């Protein structure tokens, strides 16, 4: 695995102000982009690259530049359309309803030059039918209950027609503020392109999502009309690692999910969850590599009605991992002190200016021409950079671990003051689908979870913790026992007797009804 150089020659005045988090993890991971939205952004990139004949194929490292769809007509009809209910209540004749609606849209639709929606009239038998279909699309929207702006609401990805990028739409037009499609989907795309089994994954993704248009995709297409594309290409994403075991693991997980005999729509939520888990691990793992720390583990409490020692240990584990990326930031910046350039700058005549230039080249700060007067020497300069970088890190990248862990159901605050790792039913189900080919003995399942994702649940995996005297073997074996009970209640475990239990993949086991 080599660390790739930063893409040069790309000047974007709206690009990042510093280049610290980006250098470690890529440009970029962003907490406000939830795992579902990461997947949607990814699908948009995949579609665009697929049309250009290079799906999941990176010709040159970090040169990704794609053109996403905008589908503004569709989005106006589904999410910028509060008129359906009011018109429906007025009980107008069909003709009058259409006329009124078309007029309202003509006045109020956003982001479009041509606001004529009359093409829809010929597609539906009645306004009521049209209302029902729009209602259906609204009710199946992704994270439909959020109160985000209408241009950041997303239709369920039924197919290529339903994909579009996030936008900020105001009276003055359409712009991309990269708030909810913050490039994490692009980073995911690069990761999967660099995985060993990228080709296998590509065949399945493109085959299942783009080459088998479903009824609902054609429906969305009927509302949109011809696809609308963004005005410009989107370049600029960056992933530092040319290869990484986590990229390969993620591709394996995706393939396992897509190979399950379930509809691709049912597979998507599982993809979202396992992607969230793998991205969290990626962030922690890169931090560990920089700090040369011990392997990442996540001690999970299977929620129990009473307070247990495992709950405290799981909370400690969460906290330690949560702080790791911040520590990596500081370490990374201070490692510049060891560089030859820095030493040379210190020895030079105009040490401060030269030191500032060394830092600016690597970290994009400071601007050597505008050095503030209270930065008196290189040491102070470095401290100032560390402090600013940490503040910036804490705003978004530093929240990635806690936010995504909560969103995928890995962490919880249930019955406790502190947040700890406590997997939900949904996450457990996804883990079973990924790890269990058909059936697996329970103790082997625990081992797999530890080997693949660093999850510590049972006493074997917690050997080090028990050896250090922080917990008894019984605490962790009770924890594992609770997991067995949870899996039984989810229909994922078949217990033959006290010591023999099999975890079964719900989609692959023989139907014994």
């Amino acid at each position, binding site marked *: 695995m080599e660390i790739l150089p930063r893409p040069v020659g790309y000047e974007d005045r709206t690009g990042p102000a510093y280049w610290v988090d980006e250098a470690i993890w890529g440009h970029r991971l962003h907490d406000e982009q939830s795992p579902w939205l990461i997947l949607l952004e990814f699908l948009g990139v995949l579609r665009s690259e697929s049309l250009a004949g290079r799906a999941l194929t990176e010709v040159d490292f970090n040169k990704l530049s794609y053109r996403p769809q905008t589908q503004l007509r569709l989005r106006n009809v589904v999410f910028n359309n509060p008129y359906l209910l009011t018109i429906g209540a007025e009980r107008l004749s069909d003709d009058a309803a259409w006329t009124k609606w078309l007029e309202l849209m003509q006045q109020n639709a956003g982001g479009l030059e041509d606001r004529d929606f009359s093409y829809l009239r010929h597609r539906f*038998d009645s306004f009521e039918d049209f209302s029902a279909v729009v209602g259906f699309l609204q009710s199946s929207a992704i994270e439909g209950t959020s109160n985000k702006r209408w241009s950041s609401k997303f239709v369920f990805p039924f197919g290529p027609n339903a994909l579009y990028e996030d936008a900020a739409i105001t009276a003055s037009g359409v712009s991309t503020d990269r708030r909810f499609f913050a490039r994490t989907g692009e980073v995911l795309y690069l990761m999967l392109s660099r995985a060993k089994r990228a080709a296998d994954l590509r065949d399945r993704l493109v085959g299942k999502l783009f080459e088998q248009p479903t009824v609902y995709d054609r429906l969305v297409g009927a509302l949109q009309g011809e696809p609308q594309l963004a005005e410009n290409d989107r370049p600029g994403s960056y992933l530092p690692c040319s290869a990484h075991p986590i990229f390969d693991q993620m591709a394996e997980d995706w393939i396992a999910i897509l190979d399950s005999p379930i509809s691709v729509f*049912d597979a998507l939520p599982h993809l979202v969850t396992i992607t969230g888990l793998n991205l969290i691990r990626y962030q922690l793992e890169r931090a560990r590599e920089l700090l040369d720390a011990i392997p990442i583990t996540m001690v999970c409490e299977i929620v129990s009605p009473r307070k247990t020692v495992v709950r405290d240990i799981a909370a400690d584990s969460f906290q330690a991992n949560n702080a790791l990326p911040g520590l990596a930031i500081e370490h990374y910046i201070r490692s510049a002190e060891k560089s030859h350039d820095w030493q040379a700058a210190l020895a030079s005549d105009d040490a401060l200016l030269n030191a500032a230039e060394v830092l600016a080249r690597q970290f994009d700060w400071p601007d050597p021409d505008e050095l503030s007067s209270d930065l008196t020497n290189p040491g102070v300069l470095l401290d100032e950079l560390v402090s600013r970088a940490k503040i910036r890190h804490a705003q978004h990248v530093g929240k990635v671990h806690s936010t995504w862990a909560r969103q995928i159901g890995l962490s919880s605050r249930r019955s406790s003051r502190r947040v700890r790792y406590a997997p939900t039913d949904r996450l457990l189900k996804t883990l079973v689908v990924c790890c269990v080919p058909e059936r697996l003995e329970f103790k082997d399942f625990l081992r797999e979870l530890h080997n693949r994702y660093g999850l510590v649940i049972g006493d074997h995996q917690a050997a080090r913790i028990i050896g250090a005297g922080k917990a008894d073997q019984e605490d962790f074996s009770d924890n594992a026992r609770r997991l067995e009970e949870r899996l039984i209640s989810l229909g994922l475990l078949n217990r033959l007797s*006290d010591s023999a239990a099999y975890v079964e993949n719900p989609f692959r086991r023989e139907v*014994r009804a």
Partner: protein
Amino acid sequence: MPTNNWIRFLRNYGPIPTNDNMYDETIQRALARLKIAPIELPAPHLDWLVDNFRSKDCLSIILTGTAGDGKTYHCRSVWLELGGTIEDWNGGAKIQRLPLGTRQLIVVKDLSELRADESKPLIEQMAWDVADPASPRVYLMAANHGQLLEKLKSAGNDSTTSVLVTVVENLLVTGRGGNDAIKLDLKDLSRSAAVVMIDQVIDAIAQHSGWDGCLDCPALGEGHCPIRENRKRLVGTTDDRLFRRRLGSLVEASEQNGGHFTIRQALSLVTNIILGHPDAKDGLMSCNDVGALAAAGSAEQASPYRNVFGGNLKRSHAERTEPFRKLQLFGIGSETSNKVDNVLVYGADDPALLATYSALVQSDPIYGETPTFKRAQQSYLEGDDPAAATRFLALLQGQRQRLFFTIGEELAESLDLWDLTVFRYAGLYLESARALAEKHPLPRNVMPMLIRGLNRVFTGMLIQNQDELVLASAGSQSQSRTSPLFEEFVSVARRGGEEVSLVSDNTGGMQLVVKLSRDNPPPVSLQMSTTRFEFLGRVAEGALPSSFSLECYEDFLAFKARLLSAVERRRVLDGDDRATDIVLKFIDLNLDGRASSRSVTVRI
């Protein structure tokens, strides 16, 4: 006070801390020492096993199950039936050999007894023998599930042994070996019909010749012995075996729900019913206790009806000990039913309830309206003593438990007997299962209730349709809360190849079978356990699916997914081609709650 050796011996089967009764051999020796005839326990698979070993192409058999299922007992019975002697058996060898015509039968009494160096060569040899049709050796092996897998997997990695391991694993998990070349079968004793077994165990204990030892006891003559009284009630001569039948129903309902009763647990239960008393040592009476308890006036606490649930044991002990843990899941005693509670509390005073009260409570002076109960009831009604209220409410628990086993068939319907349990529909469930097994028509309201429940789970809406199954989807993910898109109606009554029905599964339970066409695709079925039946009943009457049982809810959503796949396959087979227009069907609810489909066409 004379003592009866038989009763002293019987205590060993109860839920006492020392578990000497665990070992079949220990019991055999104790029986011989105390000169008591052995207890004749049911061995339902004996005939099948013996026939197998006497036949020309006999298979090797592995008997598996949990502790107490009767594996060693069956092995010994087969041994004796095929000509082995009891002396050889008791000789102590872990692996016994018996000539069987041209072959040799190798019997392993308990695989867990063997050390690794003993089991490894045996398993390797067995792997060869079951794969070779001309082999002169056949095996009968008894092993717990966990031990079986562990010993097999650590026996070796060569291909022959691996084949054996795969076949055994398949047999354990799916019931089918998947490889006809391996002459092996597996019988899981934890999956046998339990109701018949409970009846036989009751007879084996309650009708044992050991009870004759009481004949010269003064307590028997005076009719003051709670042990004898409990035994009498269990035998069932005075109540037409009602107590036994109700107990059998509870066991059956538990079995159909995955709560299996082993023979050992049945013995423990029956012993506890007869001997249980909270003040006795370990909660089980002995002959010496009887006099003291009668003198203290606490004989009424030996209520056999309370003992069924381990009421004589310490609460934490009963919650963790089988079979009481399983029986406590029914919540009998703590579940309150207005009808029954009214009778118990006000029956003595209220003229409208007096007849029922008299028939149900006053008729039983030993465990029903005892002086203690009467006093507590009066204090409670007068309301002046708060401590009395607590005492009375505790006594009510015991009375509810008693009533569950004593309310006669005529009153059971009007008093809603099963409302005394958490499985309000279990009575209907058992009635249906029995009707199916005996090929009688189902109770009238069963299918409409099940269909209504299914429809509500499938659509997420309170629809009233009960003549057809409404298959609905959400378009996007199948785990969505509501499913507004209509896929198909499936007729319940047989029509055009479609049919929805309950079918007996030949082990006392039933399956819900949905036929979509006469041949292809094949029918989709779902095992109807007690809990799933209860779930559908509650949803049909208005409960929210995920609030009753999340597990059931998931089960039914998975069932729906299978049905939708089958419908899709049928469409493909019927040659539904893709029209150029898109047609979506939505579910509309009429004012009376009936669902109908509304088509919306979208022209491209």
